[in-house]
């Protein structure tokens, strides 16, 4: 009884975190700011939903499998975000006009221009 309430609360809150990530992707003004929403909020929503799944089944094999997915996501999401942001910077994606610090541009003299 208690485990099922915990599992349902975790499922619904994880999906709400993913909805927040989706709204942030639409609302934020810049590619790098959008990456802020997509990486953190969506990974945390996945963590909550898979914890809900492992609370629902409460078997060792399912818990192991969901922790495998969580570990893989939390290992690979920062690497993927790093590579996308580096590619976006090298390509010269326009920044938000209120961005103040761009250290790559100060060092290399090239990079993003303000739009």
């Amino acid at each position, binding site marked *: 009884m208690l485990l099922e*309430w915990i*599992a*349902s609360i975790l499922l619904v809150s994880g*999906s709400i975190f993913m909805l927040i990530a989706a709204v942030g992707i639409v609302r934020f003004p810049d590619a790098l700011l959008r990456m802020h929403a997509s990486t953190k909020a969506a990974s945390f929503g996945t963590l909550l*939903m898979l914890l809900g799944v492992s609370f629902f089944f409460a078997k060792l094999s399912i818990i192991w499998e969901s922790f495998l*997915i969580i570990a893989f996501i939390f290992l690979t999401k920062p690497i*993927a975000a790093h*590579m996308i942001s580096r590619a976006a910077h090298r*390509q010269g994606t326009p920044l938000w006009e209120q961005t103040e610090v761009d250290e790559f541009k100060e060092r290399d003299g090239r990079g993003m221009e303000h739009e």
Partner: protein
Amino acid sequence: MTDFSVLHTASAVSLVILIISMFVVFIRLQRGPTLPDRIISLDVFSTLTIGIIAAYTVYTGNPVFLDASVIVAVITFLGTVAIARYLERRR
């Protein structure tokens, strides 16, 4: 029986929320001004797919579907890294 209906309702609600957020991300995929925006929204698509698989596993009570989300997590990382490398080389 009432215990089961709580989880049934919760997984159905989270499925609906995830499908709504998929449509919201699709707006950015269709509108995004540059190519990195579209890559970011495709990355979020895959994360939403993992969430949908998790909610559907609870909805049906069949743990076999959880194997698919492992595959989705692996394939997504490879695809994102490949597209980012291609974008970096292109210039």
